[in-house]
């Protein structure tokens, strides 16, 4: 068992009165033990919904319609809610984009970490929980942990709040941490420190990560592998170090081109024309074809299958030979 998490053909739909929004449609991914997988893509391409699906936190009217999510050999789709509750925080944890609003303003940071501890260890004494909280705060390298444990969320800066959230997330020794744009709302240096913390946690605890991000440069630096999502599907997965050199899918290439490069190049930003398709009415054939520079007749008709072009490098595109 090399993979800690395998997602097979996941479909998550949102049913509204007038239409069905197919947020995730046929996503297949795997995460290896102790690996940092970057999940990149434009906004509204289903990254967050995929994360919520793994946690089984999709709220009605959303529903996981089809597929398998296999975590440590267990299929989470048909796990009862009580088992899922134990798994959340205990097996897979998730942290959210806005660290400030992930904390309840009414309680101290310490209390909220203790709450997470108690959710998985009911018999722990108050003193033990307090000590564990302090040691967790030390592990996430917060300054003055004693003081911060007693602080309310409005007393904490964004970076400190994110550290508190991470401390709560790792409190019950999960094996996988899903981080949904953990640094988007933080400034660059603080974001970099949080990334360093992730690397440290992986080293110390063997924690695997799914890192959802827009930032291709960051994902190339931090991640081991990168999965590119488009319109609810993974279109390409490859090793992070190959991202800029070996990316094959036209969408990945277009994304890479829109990363600002050096000052002197004439065209500073190259944008991808058009928008991510409306998830309730996706185009026929390959979802990317209306925006694809290499579009051909077959792209308009069918969706290309996901093929392994070289070890650990999967692409779904018909026009591989030309790239």
């Amino acid at each position, binding site marked *: 068992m090399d993979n800690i998490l395998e997602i097979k053909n996941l479909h998550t739909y949102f049913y509204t009165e007038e239409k069905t929004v197919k947020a995730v449609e046929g996503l297949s991914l795997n995460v290896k033990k102790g690996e940092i997988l970057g999940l990149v893509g434009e906004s509204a391409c289903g990254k967050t919904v995929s994360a919520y699906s793994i946690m089984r936190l999709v709220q009605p009217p959303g529903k996981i319609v089809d597929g398998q999510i296999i975590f440590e050999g267990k299929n989470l789709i048909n796990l009862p809610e009580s088992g899922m509750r134990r798994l959340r*925080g205990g097996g897979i944890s998730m942290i959210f984009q806005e660290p400030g609003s*992930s904390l309840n303003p009414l309680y101290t940071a310490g209390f909220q970490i203790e709450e997470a501890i108690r959710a998985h260890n009911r018999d722990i004494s108050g003193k033990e929980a307090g000590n564990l909280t302090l040691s967790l705060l030390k592990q996430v390298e917060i300054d003055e942990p004693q003081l911060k444990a007693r602080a309310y969320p409005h007393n904490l800066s964004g970076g400190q709040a994110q550290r508190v959230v991470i401390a709560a997330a790792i409190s019950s020794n999960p094996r996988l941490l899903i981080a949904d744009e953990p640094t988007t709302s933080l400034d660059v240096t603080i974001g970099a420190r949080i990334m360093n913390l992730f690397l440290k946690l992986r080293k110390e605890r063997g924690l695997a990560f799914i890192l959802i991000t827009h930032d291709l440069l960051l994902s190339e630096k931090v991640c081991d592998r990168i999965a590119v999502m488009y319109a609810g599907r993974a279109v390409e997965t490859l090793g992070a170090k190959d991202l800029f050199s070996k990316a094959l899918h036209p969408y990945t290439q277009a994304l890479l081109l829109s990363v600002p490069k050096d000052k002197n190049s004439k065209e500073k930003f190259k944008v991808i024309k058009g928008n991510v398709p409306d998830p309730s009415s996706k185009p026929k054939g390959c979802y990317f074809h209306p925006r694809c520079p290499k579009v051909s007749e077959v792209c308009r008709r069918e969706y290309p299958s996901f093929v392994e072009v070289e070890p650990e490098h999967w692409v779904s595109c018909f026009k591989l030979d030309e790239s």
Partner: protein
Amino acid sequence: MSQGHKVTRPQVKRHSKAGAAFRKLRRHRPALVSFFVLIFLYLTALFAGFIAPYHFDNEERSLSYCPPVKIHFFNSQGKFSRPFVYRMSYEFDEVYSRVYVEDKSKEHPIRLFSRGDRYKLGLFNTDMHLFGVDPKARLYLFGADSRGRCLFSRIIYGGQISLSIGLVGVFISLIIGVFIGGLSGYFAGRVDNVIMRLCEIIMVIPGFYLMLALRSVFSYSLSSLQIYFVVVFIMSFIGWAGIARVVRGMSISLREREFVLAAKALGVSNFKIILRHIIPHTFSYIIVAATLSVPGYILGESALSLLGLGIQDPYASWGNLLSEAMAVSQIKFHPWILLPGLFIFIVVMAFNLLGDGLRDVFDPRMQIGRKP
């Protein structure tokens, strides 16, 4: 220059929400006055035995419908003296109705801490009253009712029932309403549908008829304590639905907040999420709603008791005291028996003003007619 840097640690101070609220309330005059009026009235109800000069059941038939006694400050020689009253006695006028006159032969001074009827105050069994006169005369400040009982004392004792029913009733319906509303909004879907339809059924039936119908479920002859709880039960049974609906609405929007999702992602159970992360965020609404709904309970109790379905004589509540004032002729000849109504009015008014003030404190957007 050479002085070392003073290391200042960031002060982690608890935001005292209650303290801030009270400071804001101080600027809201009517609410503040109402607050102290209510505290005063609740204190008199709490120490009713001590403050009332007579026991609520102490009757003097010869003083039926005796008007309020006059308190005199000048004695028969026209000299200023300590306040005193005269003994009242009646004569018949030409149509044989009673006319009360003062017996000026003897002055009965009002004494502080005088002895009178025995009563229990907590653990103490005592006969000490705040004020009173010697037993030959009667200190009927607000006059007497048909059986010659001191109306002032009965109003003070009645406050125990009328004022506490409001609080107890609101407390019970709040607990039920907040919990069910929180549950309903949090789980949404079918649970929510069932609970909300139930609330609507309770709410569409006119409250007063529902109250009468529920009262008829219980036996007519109950002990006064049983009646008290029946009345509380009836009022709470009707009252929780409105609270549940609003809390449900808040719960639906709170459920989407990231900290609720974050708690769920950490494996915190639904029950604890509702208790710790949903309900506490509805408290500022709850305080206002509770304050504004107390009058409804007081009026409901009064209405039941007025009809003779609530608290029974000889026990006093403001509602059953008013039941004597149902006939116009009574009001014409003995207008003082309307005084319990004045107390109901004051309390209802005070709760409403206080509730308005609290709403302004907790929700500045709701302020009407004031510049932002």
